[in-house]
């Protein structure tokens, strides 16, 4: 079964592309998240659920 599966599988370019996309994507995410000057911004963001103002109705 293993031999058969591998024998018929010729789409190696697909998996290679997958790997490349993955690698590049995660490096980008990490660079993005840990870039300089972002600390202030994240502190703002993480407090969002705790902001006192509740929502209101725009149509009132």
């Amino acid at each position, binding site marked *: *079964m*293993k031999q*058969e*599966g*591998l024998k*018929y*599988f*010729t*789409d190696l370019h*697909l*998996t290679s*592309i*997958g790997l490349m*996309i*993955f690698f590049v*994507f*995660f490096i980008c*995410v*990490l660079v*993005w*998240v*840990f870039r300089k*000057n*972002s600390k*202030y*911004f*994240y*502190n*703002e*963001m*993480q*407090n*969002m*659920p*705790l*902001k006192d*103002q*509740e*929502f*209101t*109705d*725009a*149509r*009132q």
Partner: protein
Amino acid sequence: MIWAAAAFLFGVVAAIQIPWWPANLNLEWITFGRLRPLHTNAAIFAFGGNAIFAGIYHSSQRLLKARMFSDLLSRMHFWGWQLIIVAAAITLPLGYSQAKEYAELEWPIDIAIAVVWVIFAVNFFMTIHRRREKHLYVALWFYISTIITVAVLHIVNSIEIPVSFMKSFPVYAGIQDAMVQWWYGHNAVAFFLTTPFLGLMYYYVPKAANRPVYSYRLSIVHFWSLVFIYIWAGPHHLLYTSMPEWAQTLGMIFSVMLWAPSWGGMINGLLTLKGSWNLLRTQPLLKFFVAALTFYGMATFEGPLLSIKSVSALGHYTDWIIGHVHAGTLGWNGFLTFGILYYMIPRLWKTELYSNKLLENHFWMGLLGVIMYYVSMVVAGITQGLMWRAVNKDGTLVYPDFIETVVRIIPLYWVRALGGMLFLIGFLLMCYNIYMTIKLAPKQVKEEAVEVTRTGYNEVPGTGHRKLEGMGFVFSVLAFLAIAVGSFIEIYPTLSLHKYITPTNVTEPYTALEIAGRSIYQKEGCYVCHSQQIRPIVSEVLRYGNASTIEESMWDHPFQWGSKRTGPDLARVGKKYPNLWHFSHMMDPRTVTPASIMPNYPWLADKDTDFLRLRKELSVLRRLGVPYDDDTVVNADGIAQKQAKEIAADIEANGGPKGMEKKEIIALIAYLQALGQKGKAQ
């Protein structure tokens, strides 16, 4: 208007309580095959669905500082979804089923689901569009990815061609269907039971503990990795099947990789409570969140473990998987939902919870229930798995009779039932508690409109980050791309099925009567307890015969490989027993296997087979590529009746009852006798 929203949310909450599952407790119920799909659908889509809608509607309005886009759409979404649940509750017990796990609902309901989901999506995205808060908090990301991915999964998996109002054939067959189905099935867990609940966790845990999430950076990294990796892991449900080896390995590797982002979420949630553990005394509802996160951590640790091929070889098809699933749904989804409800209800009704003591009792009973359930099922699963594979020194099976392995674990099924019962009682305590809370709430509280200014537009300098995360549309497209890449690479190769099939082994299709029998097999939910897939493992080949091949199931719309063995595998059952044996077995399994726990199916000998529909069915199948010639399609009913007569005559000649040729049981026997007889290795 705020009252309207509150009333709407109350409706959702009430709806959560209606479809609670009692079926769970009755393993040996008469029609387990039909009730089990009802149970899974109710748990995932009715309970889970309504819980996430309630949470999403409540938290999104607060995070976006804007009211939902349209009350009409909200109502349509709510009532549409409840109607779908009612439709499922009616059709599944009646036996209208596509026989694909968690996607059993027939095509008219599938279309309704798609429509209602689009209504929800429009309502949600328009609210984002009109928000007064520039930033999209991380919880909203999870909601966005949920809405997009569930739509993609549902539509792709549900492509089917109708035969009649309540019968259809999926366009996929054999390994294609298996692959698409588990891409869907696995990601229903991922994007219906994981991402929306993680989003809720990111709002309600900080809210309840009144401190910000532990690390916002971690939440970004774990969001993207989770969304990106989860979609690839579906093939771990098909390890050791006839699916190509490379796809199995891919599924296993991605499943193991998932461990990291899953635990990222758990750690982030638990560490949010760092320094506020004393709150557990004053805010007992936090216990639910802590337990939920712990169960999430355990279940997501066990998941990758079970995806490792050697562990899967032991655990797959056993109750271990059932235990694993319930640790996730009862422990993670259940407890998180309860925590949210205990948080949300008193605030919406501007009152205090009726009784904290009842809450405590609910928590401990529920916890004990889940633990009993989980432990008993893992022990049962491992016991059965080990018994299946036990081989003597002379190369024979230690337990050749399948029934021996079933009887051994019956006491554990009772422990499981007790655990489930405890969980249910705890839940009822909550219903009472919430009912009293609402009843005692002050009736005439004046609603004060809160003035909200547009925020987040000027206070923070326009860095690159806020530009990206402020753009709802661009973000949605990125999330879609993340899941699309994985989906495409996972599914594409199986869509080119022909690559894996040796031309000399091409299988003969089922006869018309066998197709009719196959429909009955699906209708009764036989796939729930019986697999049709012999794995290339020594003990299985010894027990059942040669391992299954791709060719055998190449015309199977849908595939019927199964995912649990309460009874033995049926892939080679054809021609193993005489027709009369099958007849007696369906009427009363105890006559052929004294200790059997399978229910009786007496109605199969009363109901008539629908021969007239066969022409239409065969012509649809031919359109899907099954090689039937014109004669077979045009004369389908006649050919089927002829074959039915032969089988009925054989049963009669061996001392069985007379006049059975039109009955459903004959068609079912024809199908069972055909299993493993097509596409034998040449």
